[in-house]
């Protein structure tokens, strides 16, 4: 589904990401963990085309997509959420989803006039379904900026899902959530996977990663230090030393 081959990103002299190789299979939930500044968000931004890669290749569904601009990546089926929520705060919840209906299907299905100026029943129904799934149906007409934190997170996820992605990149979706909300989020992520979306989960919250991912990779200082199932990772001495070890000492 997604192959990263020797992907590197240097900011000046800093190697934010160095020779990353990852292969994500269709239909899996792949976790990417690592301490702060280890290159997780950089990876997401490279896959989405926000930054150009310094070296290496990104291959999505057998097609090279390295350095293509973000809106084209979305058309190909890669959607994302942000580490710090980035909603269109003055638009309503409904409008946030409405502007995000840009999948290849949606573009092909309607003529441009209807797409930009109309609002067909099919379009409305689809948005309503996703609002329902995200428990935001009653908030439909409220400005996104007025939502509670948890609701904003759900809306951002909904905004990514409305673009009918094949691959969904979640950049620390559990940040700032309590345990109950994290559990709910895990459920939601599994539901999305079951509906056929492949997921790359970048996360700090161990409970979530260990519970929902099928496989995961660990980054440290921009390099991959381990890859495997959650159990394998938990028992990997290198990971314990670099990541879990230090974090358990500090807590």
């Amino acid at each position, binding site marked *: 589904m997604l192959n990263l081959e020797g992907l590197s990103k240097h900011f000046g002299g800093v190697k934010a990401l160095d020779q990353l190789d990852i292969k994500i299979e269709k239909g899996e939930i792949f976790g990417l963990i690592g301490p702060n500044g280890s290159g997780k968000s950089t990876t997401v931004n490279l896959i989405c085309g926000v930054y150009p890669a310094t070296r290496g290749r990104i291959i999505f569904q057998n097609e090279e997509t390295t350095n293509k601009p973000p809106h084209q990546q979305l*058309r190909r089926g890669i959607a994302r959420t942000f580490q710090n929520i980035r909603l269109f705060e003055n638009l*309503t919840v409904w409008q946030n989803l409405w502007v995000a209906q840009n999948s290849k299907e949606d573009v092909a299905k309607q003529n441009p006039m209807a797409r930009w100026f109309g609002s067909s029943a099919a379009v409305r129904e689809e948005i309503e379904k996703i609002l329902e799934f995200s428990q935001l149906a009653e908030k439909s007409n409220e400005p996104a900026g007025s939502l509670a934190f948890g609701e904003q997170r759900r809306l951002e996820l909904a905004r990514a899902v409305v673009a009918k992605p094949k691959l969904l990149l979640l950049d620390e979706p559990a940040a700032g959530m309590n345990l109950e909300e994290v559990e709910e989020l895990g459920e939601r992520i599994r539901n999305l996977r079951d509906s056929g979306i492949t997921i790359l989960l970048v996360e700090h919250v161990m409970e979530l990663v260990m519970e929902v991912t099928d496989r995961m990779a660990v980054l440290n200082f921009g390099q991959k230090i381990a890859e495997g199932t959650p159990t394998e990772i938990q028992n990997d001495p290198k990971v314990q030393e670099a990541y879990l070890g230090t974090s358990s000492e500090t807590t």
Partner: protein
Amino acid sequence: MDYYFGLSQTIGIHTLLGLSAYILMLTGQLSLAQVGFFAIGAYTSGILTTMFGYHIMPALLIGSLVAGFFAFLIGFPALRVKGLMLVVATIAFSQFVSLFFFNLDWRKTVNGVEVGPDSTQGFREIRYYAANGWDSGEVALFVWVIVVLVMAALWWLDRSRAGAVLRAVGEDELAAQSVGLNLTAVKVIAMTAGGVIAGLGGSLYAHSTTYVDHLTFSILLATFAIAYPILGGLSGVFGTLVAVIFIQGILVEGLRFLGDWRNLLFGLLIVLVMNLKPEGIIDARVAQLLKRTFLGGGKGGKHA
């Protein structure tokens, strides 16, 4: 009465100028090129009616389309830069247009009278209305029919998906790209639409005043164009109209006895609004309040 008809024409035309900046401002861009498009519309339609005997309607249409075409062309390079750099780039464009017309010398004798742009002397005798027996009340009506149509179109646009897309780009470019919006395309389209509206305003202006020269299209006018939506806020098209009535009707006309001191007042007003009400006088809250007062209910229901 003629005085009020004249004033209402000015208010209508400036509303178009303000709306042309408004639509671009929705995408988060501040442009001082609107006066350039305004000038292109004014000269183009003026040339068509005086030198080639066009009817006013096709002249307006062509004037605005030519202005829109130039907006489209400069949209690509100009919108690669943002913020202050865009302001500088668009000032340069407006100056370029102004200097082009300063040098444009293209005259022709029609019915024994020499007409057309006469470089430094300006472009006189744009007398379509007088030649066809329109009085100033009829001209004011004509101007306002067009202004209302443009406002209605923008009001409707604001309720469409396209309007939401413009605002989405204005709020957060990174998020907008990430949900699949092509920033360049959205901005260039907004620039082009703004160019068309400014060109329409310029065309009406040239025929209302019957005389334009390069000095008409000054940086001051460019600042007016962006001041209207800044003062009126971006929550809807009526904000711009209210701001134009306030500035042209009260500040410029009502305080005429202050002479050039009015410009000082104008500057002060912009600084005050930007500090006290950065979202404009009619921000989202005031807009809600007005809606509830005048329309009752005031429910969102934009997409129903």
